[in-house]
């Protein structure tokens, strides 16, 4: 049962074709990997799915809705969450505040009930607080809730950003280079965390990363991009031995 469908998506920036006729589908509950050499178009694809970039051609379907015309925050509300390669935490805010925001964004109370401290506002404030703390506990981040996001080391920041995306309770989570800047131990923790997240929240994940070992280990299905085009698609074993993939990465055929 597919959750996300990419049909023939192309993206052009001026004269550059960042993506050419890319198609693939991500099924519910899958951990799906998207790999390729630098500049292959992976981040562009993420931007197209989240609505930051408009595809020149093609369709994107999420949960059986076509979402190509929706603004980014609407797609988030539909259940698409994202982490960023270059970490977009709200640096000046505390970890707890960062994690409360996804619930804040969905809260129905407006300015007025906020300003007058109406009961609904306090109720939703507590709810955001509880969910944030629960998520901190789940990702074993208790104890840092009061610290400013900017003051944290990179490994912890990545975990916080992941936690924040999860507070959205997304159906689909896009992970853009989540292992970037992590050492071997932290990467291993990440590799354990992702299936745990799937098990606990039922989240489908679309993962982009350069760490091939990580991708091979966690993903059920992998699509390989090169120069904006799909060159291979299948389970890790198939990809591992696909000569086209090896050529794209190493630039030569393996006999």
């Amino acid at each position, binding site marked *: 049962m597919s959750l996300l469908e990419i049909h023939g998506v192309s993206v052009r920036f001026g004269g550059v074709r960042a993506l050419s006729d890319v198609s693939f589908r991500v099924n519910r509950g899958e951990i799906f990997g998207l790999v390729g050499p630098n500049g292959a178009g992976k981040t562009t694809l993420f931007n197209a799915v989240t609505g930051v970039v408009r595809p020149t051609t093609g369709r994107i379907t999420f949960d059986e809705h076509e979402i190509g015309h929706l603004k980014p925050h609407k797609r988030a509300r539909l259940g698409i969450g994202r982490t960023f390669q270059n970490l977009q935490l709200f640096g000046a805010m505390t970890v707890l505040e960062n994690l409360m925001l*996804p619930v804040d*964004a969905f809260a129905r109370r407006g300015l007025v009930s906020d300003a007058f401290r109406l009961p609904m506002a306090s109720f939703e404030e507590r709810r955001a607080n509880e969910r944030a703390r629960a998520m901190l506990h789940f990702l074993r*981040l208790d104890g840092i809730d009061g610290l400013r996001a900017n003051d944290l080391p990179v490994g912890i920041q990545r975990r916080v950003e992941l936690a924040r995306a999860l507070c959205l309770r997304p159906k689909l989570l896009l992970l853009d280079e989540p292992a970037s800047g992590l050492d071997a131990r932290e990467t291993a923790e990440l590799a354990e965390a992702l299936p745990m997240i799937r098990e606990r929240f039922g989240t489908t994940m679309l993962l982009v990363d350069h760490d091939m070992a990580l991708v091979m280990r966690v993903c059920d299905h992998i699509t390989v991009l090169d120069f904006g085009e799909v060159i291979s698609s299948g389970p890790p074993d198939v990809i591992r031995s696909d000569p086209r993939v090896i050529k794209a990465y190493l630039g030569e055929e393996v006999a």
Partner: protein
Amino acid sequence: MNDNVRLRRITVVAALAVAIVVPLFISNFYQFEASEIAVLAILVLSLVVITGYVGQISFCQYSFAAIGAFTVGSLVGGHHWSFWLALVVAVAFSSVVGILVGIPALRLSGLFLAILTVAVALFFDRFLLAAGTWDSFSGGLNPWRVGRPSFFGIGLDGPYAYYAFTLGAFAVMAWLVWNLRIGKTGRVLRAIRGSEIAASMIGIDVTLWKLAAFGLSAGLAGLAGGLLAAGVGGVSPPSFDFLHSIQIAALATVMGVESIASAAAGALALVAVPEILTHTPISADYFPLFVGGVLIVQLVFAPQGAVPKMVEDIKHLLARGRHGEPDATTDEISAKVTV
């Protein structure tokens, strides 16, 4: 954390007590000036919302105030409406104009937004409020006369009575804005300030929130304008000109545009300093010079503002006295997070 909250509560209560009691013993004229301070504090509060919380520079707050003032002026002075009804209309009208100004502001970065607000301020100053353009609103060459209203039966003609009323108005507004700040609204606005793209990725409709903030800020300014009209008893365009807008923006920056306390401090400075100057050989006309000079010096040495710096220094002093603990290092933070 709790100590900070307690300290804050004590400070607020003490400040309120001083603000209520002390003016009982000063002359009528100073009581009137005190009410001016309270009203201008609401105006600076509007700046705190738009610049401090949302991070957008605005040089046209006095223009929004002018809308409030002249709406009250023309409705009460020209059409004999009830003051309170006129005030409600004034706040609504200025909020709407604020949202309108916010629309082009959405796609402009800070610098160009500043230029836009300058253009708006000059548009009001030189065109809209100039005699001959829209006299039924601006009053043309004859300033509107607005009398003091009565508040639930209590006449506000007396200077202390009006001061108490405006102080109450500021206190209420400050409380509302404070609640916004510590609640979801404050977080969302800070998130937008931090990273608009991340904010939209977690479902925040950045456009809506920014426009709401513009509307809120302009509404506060409009309220201040309306109250100014009642305080002074009349409205005339020069009180709302471009220079005033620059000056108040500069003062708010000097005081620290992110804190509500600086709203009070800024308003206090705006009225008290020129008043003090009149008692010295230096003319009060030199006030903008001081503002500009202090602004320059301030920005070179303490960019986040005088008031927050003082608050932080006090906090550090108290914290060090109690715990003597340095800030956590990175390693200590990592150790806290279990594997």
